[in-house]
């Protein structure tokens, strides 16, 4: 357990014109862990993801992936270094087919150049063929291969969520960030999602950080949990520690999310 962490977040913070959306945020994630990030609405969870993925540049602090500083890298560079994500409000390429959505994620793994594509050189054909085969292979794992040529926007909601996860995984991350993957799902779908997360984690030897409001899901599958409130880290620890943490109870008081969901 003494190996260096996969992700280390040190005193990270960001301001939006006076509003401290996140401040003094610290986090360590080790290879293979499944970590939950929770907090009331507007706590700054999504903002944390945006900081980790380079969408926002932190006004203070450092973000290190395998010891390499990520601050100031553009999102695509962060992805190429091994962090990919899904979005709270699904962001698929709506007019593209399911297959093409995944192919886009394979983009940086293929190497054929623009000129080889324009002149249709052999490297273009072999590169495209490989992308296609890999993507189809991949979609089979997610049971989306029956919809290969369907436009993403025509999929039912649950499948869109699944496709988004598949797409993020296809980018070949070491660390996968999931922003409320179960939002809007019924209990049945949520159950399937939990199984899927456990499965991909196993299969791809992944490290996962997920934001979720569904306490049952979080408490059920996460090994450790970080709790944010008003941009501050108010608690971290095992699900049991979090459940009984006075500050967490206080933050959620009124919402009674912790009690009702965990005991029910």
């Amino acid at each position, binding site marked *: 357990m003494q190996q260096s962490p996969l992700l280390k977040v040190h005193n990270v913070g960001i301001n939006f*014109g006076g509003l401290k959306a996140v401040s003094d945020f610290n986090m360590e994630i080790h290879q293979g862990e499944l970590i939950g990030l929770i907090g009331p609405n507007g706590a700054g969870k999504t903002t944390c993801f*945006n900081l980790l993925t380079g969408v*926002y540049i932190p006004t203070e602090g450092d973000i290190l992936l395998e010891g390499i500083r990520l601050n100031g890298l553009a999102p695509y560079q962060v992805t190429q270094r091994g962090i990919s994500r899904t979005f709270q409000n699904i962001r698929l390429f709506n007019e593209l087919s399911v297959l093409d959505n995944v192919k886009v994620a394979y983009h940086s793994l293929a190497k054929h150049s623009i000129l080889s594509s324009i002149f249709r050189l052999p490297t273009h054909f072999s590169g495209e063929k490989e992308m296609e085969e890999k993507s189809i292979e991949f979609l089979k794992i997610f049971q989306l291969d029956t919809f290969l040529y369907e436009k993403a926007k025509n999929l039912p909601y649950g499948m869109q969520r699944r496709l988004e996860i598949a797409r993020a995984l296809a980018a070949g991350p070491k660390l996968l960030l999931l922003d409320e993957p179960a939002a809007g799902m019924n209990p049945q779908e949520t159950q399937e999602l939990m199984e899927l997360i456990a499965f991909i984690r196993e299969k791809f030897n992944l490290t996962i950080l997920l934001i979720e409001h569904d306490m049952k899901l979080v408490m059920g599958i996460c090994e450790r949990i970080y709790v944010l409130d008003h941009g501050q880290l108010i608690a971290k620890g095992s699900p049991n520690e979090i459940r009984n943490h006075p500050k967490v109870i206080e933050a959620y008081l009124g919402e009674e999310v912790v009690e009702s969901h965990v005991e029910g």
Partner: protein
Amino acid sequence: MEWIQQLINGISLGSIYALIALGYTMVYGIIKLINFAHGEVFMIGAFVGFYAIAGWGLGFFPALILSMATCAIFGVLIERIAYRRLRNATRIAALITAIGVSLLIQYTVIYARGAQVEVYPNVLANKKFDIFGVQVSSQSLLILTVSIILMIILQFIVHKTKIGKAMRAVSHDMEAARLMGINVNTTISATFAIGSSLAGAAGVFFGVYYTKIEPLMGVIPGVKAFVAAVLGGIGIIPGAMVGGMLLGIVETIVSAIGLSLWRDAAAFIILILILLFRPSGIFGKNTREKV
């Protein structure tokens, strides 16, 4: 001394830009649309003023008021017919529609009356004052004064009246305003009416000051007024005034140092510099897109 004179010319031109820019900025502030057809409202204003003065023999002020009223109605009609359906469309669809409306007005006017230039009648006696050795024309003084009065009235409307408060509320958050019981459609119509009437006034001033008007006259001042609005910070009323004045002065200086062929380029260069380095303009706050 000559420089001060140039400055005064610049301010007169600038006040025309500012009056047009106000309409751009108000409309953009409220429905996030670059109303390309605004330059054509300005042109219509100039023509209404022309026909009122030359055809019906009205004086300057009656013609001004008639032109403002006509433009107000015209602006409201444009919004009703073309833009209202676009509330939920993409910004680009809205922009293209606005370009289409703008061209439609230009060429309908040409179709109806031809492309020939009209010469504005001399309604205002143009005396030259000599103030400390600086030649100032009574026309530029009058234009400047009336522009400033109009801007003060506008500030009063926006800040002190009910419709002004509604306008600010709708531009802040249309949905919330609707929920609070504000009639969004009426408010947007009022915005178009006020903005268009200012453009109408600018049209009359332009005619009086530069004496020549024609159906395509709205294009360049329209685009430049838009630049002025961006310069000041789009959606911000005082920004449009300052932006207009600044642009007028810069253009006059560029002409005065012998680069008059580059005058039009100056506005575009300012536009691009602003968009690149401070897209929120002089008075705007930088905002980031939420993800």
